[in-house]
């Protein structure tokens, strides 16, 4: 990643020149313009054909916009509903009502923390059973009021700990998937960062699945795969490449419906632009779904998931 560091340095340098340009009245415009072109070129080279492992790093970049950043940009009136009505309020998984350009929707979103304190509160975006039960509650509430559901996925996975097992995390995820499949409203899932395993799929079994360009969606983390299959944590890059966990690959395989473009370098380079692209994608798919009857939606949803998988049929 030394190349990315170079880019960051160059970017900082340009910024300094810009300040200088303003403050002292010096005319550095030509130099700045040259450097900007250089930077853009380097960026294109670096990011245009990102290796899978680099995408993993971008997806996990702590500067990356998280769910609440997109919610703030796309759903300004987000009205959060807390609590699973059972035992807790999971801060790694948020639910609420919002409007998308005039359309009422329900939001289910996984949220990471920005600093150690927030990460402690949000368990690094790893939801516990109370989070998935809150999501399930939200699904049924949305169904009652016929609000489509938009879920924003960004999790390393469900929280792996004693409390999760004590509260039946397996059952909570299974129930959440079941509800996603059964509720009779349109559903759209977006993988905005990490789509980690069962913890992601629990709220991802939607009518449309979108992914940000640098999102990842995988059955296991590259680290986990490396440890299990290569018996070496060093082999993460190979694991990442083998898992085909990037948005373009998943689109190719027909598993997701659309890739939302990010600026070069990743969403954090321009959140306004990324959010705007995401918003357009959401509106587009929501409008498409809204033109169907709920019976058509339910039939298509069933077919989509009934048929997912790849196998060979033997000859007679």
């Amino acid at each position, binding site marked *: 990643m030394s190349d990315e560091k170079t880019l960051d340095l160059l970017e900082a340098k340009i910024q300094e020149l810009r300040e200088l340009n303003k403050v002292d009245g010096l005319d550095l415009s030509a130099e700045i313009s040259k450097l900007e072109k250089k930077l853009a070129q380097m960026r294109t080279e670096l990011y245009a054909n990102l290796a899978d492992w680099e995408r993993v790093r971008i997806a996990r970049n702590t500067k990356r916009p998280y769910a609440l950043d997109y919610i703030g940009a796309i759903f300004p009136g987000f009205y959060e509903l807390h609590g699973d009505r059972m035992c807790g309020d999971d801060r790694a998984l948020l639910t609420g009502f919002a409007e998308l350009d005039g359309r009422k929707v329900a939001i289910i979103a996984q949220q990471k923390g920005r600093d150690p304190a927030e990460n402690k509160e949000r368990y690094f975006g790893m939801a516990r059973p109370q989070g998935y039960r809150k999501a399930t509650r939200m699904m049924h509430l949305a169904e009652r009021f016929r609000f489509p559901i938009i879920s924003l996925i960004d999790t390393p996975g469900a929280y792996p700990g004693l409390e999760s097992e004590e509260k039946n995390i*397996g*059952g909570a995820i299974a129930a959440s998937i079941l509800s996603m499949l059964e509720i009779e409203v349109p559903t759209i899932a977006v993988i905005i960062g990490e789509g980690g395993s069962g913890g992601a799929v629990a709220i991802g079994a939607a009518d449309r699945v979108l992914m940000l360009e640098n999102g990842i969606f995988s059955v296991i983390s590259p680290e*986990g795969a490396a440890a299990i299959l290569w018996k070496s944590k060093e082999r993460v890059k190979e694991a990442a490449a083998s898992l085909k*966990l990037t948005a373009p690959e998943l689109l190719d395989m027909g598993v997701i419906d659309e890739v939302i473009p990010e600026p070069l370098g990743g969403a954090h380079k321009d959140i306004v632009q990324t959010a705007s692209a995401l918003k357009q994608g959401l509106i587009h798919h929501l409008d498409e779904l809204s033109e169907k009857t709920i019976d058509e939606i339910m039939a298509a949803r069933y077919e989509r998931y009934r048929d997912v998988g790849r*196998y060979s049929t033997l000859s007679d």
Partner: protein
Amino acid sequence: MPIFKDKQYFRVKLDKEADESLWLQCKSCGELVFKRRVRENNNICPNCGEYFFLTAKERIESLIDEGSFEDVSRPIIADDPLGFQDEKAYPQRLEEAQQKTGLPSAIILASASISQMPSVIGVMEFQFIGGSMGSVMGEQICHGMEEAIRRHCAFILVSSSGGARIQEGIFALLQMVKTTAVRARLARERLPFISVMTYPTTGGVLASIASLGDIIIAEKGAMIGFAGRRVIKETIAEELPKNFQTDAFALEHGIIDRVVKREDLRSELTSVLKFFQEEKKR
């Protein structure tokens, strides 16, 4: 490519293979025990009661009426959709697993009767790549539930799985959704789904189809957990209770309905099927 190339080699049969040795030594008590005696005893040591590992074939044999077995699986075998290559190429792993187990995939799907009552029953084979759920297992489970709907009988799934099949990547993960979708259909038909959790029932199998039984029965000695101990210990420095992820832990925490000894599993299923099957008297 896998060794099962056409249907004729593909069908599972429950013929007993000739035993190459007559005796085995119990790892628990050290006793030399007569192998046939062990097999007839549900692979439980006749001396100390230790449960030996049951293959899927042995498991299904121990549960169903003799002679009632009919393989109803779809004639499909795994693809290599990602071209997955770790230390071995995935097709090679598949072939080795097929050779080791004599099965085309990690699940046997059969129509069979239990105490004269019809059922469709799926049994996972842990020795086939850890009983992991890939596209084939997902499809067979769904096909099994659909078969139960067609035959209007109960569906039984005996889980023994390390979770999702990593080598099939996202397709493996999405089998969680796929099996859940068809499970919802079985529920709408008001047909019972009995989930039997054995050693081990974990990860993506636990977090989908196995947890969605109308009745969930754990075999005594089952290991039931979402995340592996190693992962938990690495992620969180937590002291884990002694009975963590055991059958007793699952019962205590309301995850399952009942814990049943291996030797009682058949009669347990008989009771349940009987209850659901018999016509109401009025």
